[in-house]
């Protein structure tokens, strides 16, 4: 599935990647299992602080609780940043374009 998405994105640029390059982009895989216990004061804590993912692509499986927010890109200062909640959809996977692909993409 990941390869299909990445190939579609790269194909959109009108190029195709050699297998060896694709392996370089996607060969190293990481599985993270994150556990967020029930929190007595969730309004003052964060489960994961603001960050971007460094890999090519992240596939995120949420449970039904929610709490995933994405920062909307804008020119204004950080204090006025707008955050969009990505609500869990049963059976769906969340795809996040990581730093590696973001840097690679316009240069491919």
């Amino acid at each position, binding site marked *: *599935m990941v*390869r299909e998405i990445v190939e579609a994105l790269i194909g959109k640029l009108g190029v195709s990647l050699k297998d060896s390059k694709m392996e370089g982009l996607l060969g190293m895989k990481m599985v993270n*299992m*994150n*556990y967020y*216990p029930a929190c007595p004061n969730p309004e003052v*804590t*964060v489960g994961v602080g603001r960050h971007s993912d460094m890999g090519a692509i992240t596939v995120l*499986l949420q449970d039904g609780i929610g709490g995933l927010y994405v920062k909307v890109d804008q020119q204004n200062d950080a204090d006025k940043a707008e955050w969009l909640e990505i609500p869990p959809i049963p059976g769906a*996977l969340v795809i996040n374009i990581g730093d590696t692909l973001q840097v690679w993409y316009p240069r491919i």
Partner: protein
Amino acid sequence: MAPSFNSSNSLYDFVVRDGNGVKGLVESGISEVPERYIQPPRERINGHDSRACDAPAIDLSKMNGAEREKVVGEIARAAESLGFFQVVNHGVPLQLLESLKDAAHAFFSLPAEKKAVYCSGVSPSPRVKYGTSFVPEKEKALEWKDYISMTFSTEEEALQDWPDQCKYDFSFYSSSLFVSPLINISNI
């Protein structure tokens, strides 16, 4: 009886060094979040002020049909704008997704000493790391999260290194997903 965390050090030792994690902290019977976990206001996200993303999920099954160009266009637009999108009919069996959540629950339900063998510095493999927060030794405010992180290039590596609870249904990782599934389990 709830252990007393009368100093920041005893809390740190219990949660980080001894591998109890946030899960152990909660199970110790705390009634409020310890000081060490309180984030400065600018790091918090106020859920009430944010709106939900209303972009529809992308139907990946259409990638192989007449609407391929349209679906690829949707993916490209989402990737270039927000950088986030949801996919459905992605070909990963839903039963498998459930089994991954079960695997995560099975691992985190282990007693602290069984999880602590995978802590950084003592883990039998550099590819497997159990921990809490992100870099607790450097963070002023800790994150309310425990994790196990496992990297691999080949299935053999994973089968050799990973905790038994997480090896479950391994074929899934290489065949359907291929890369970087990040599983998010909450229990609020």
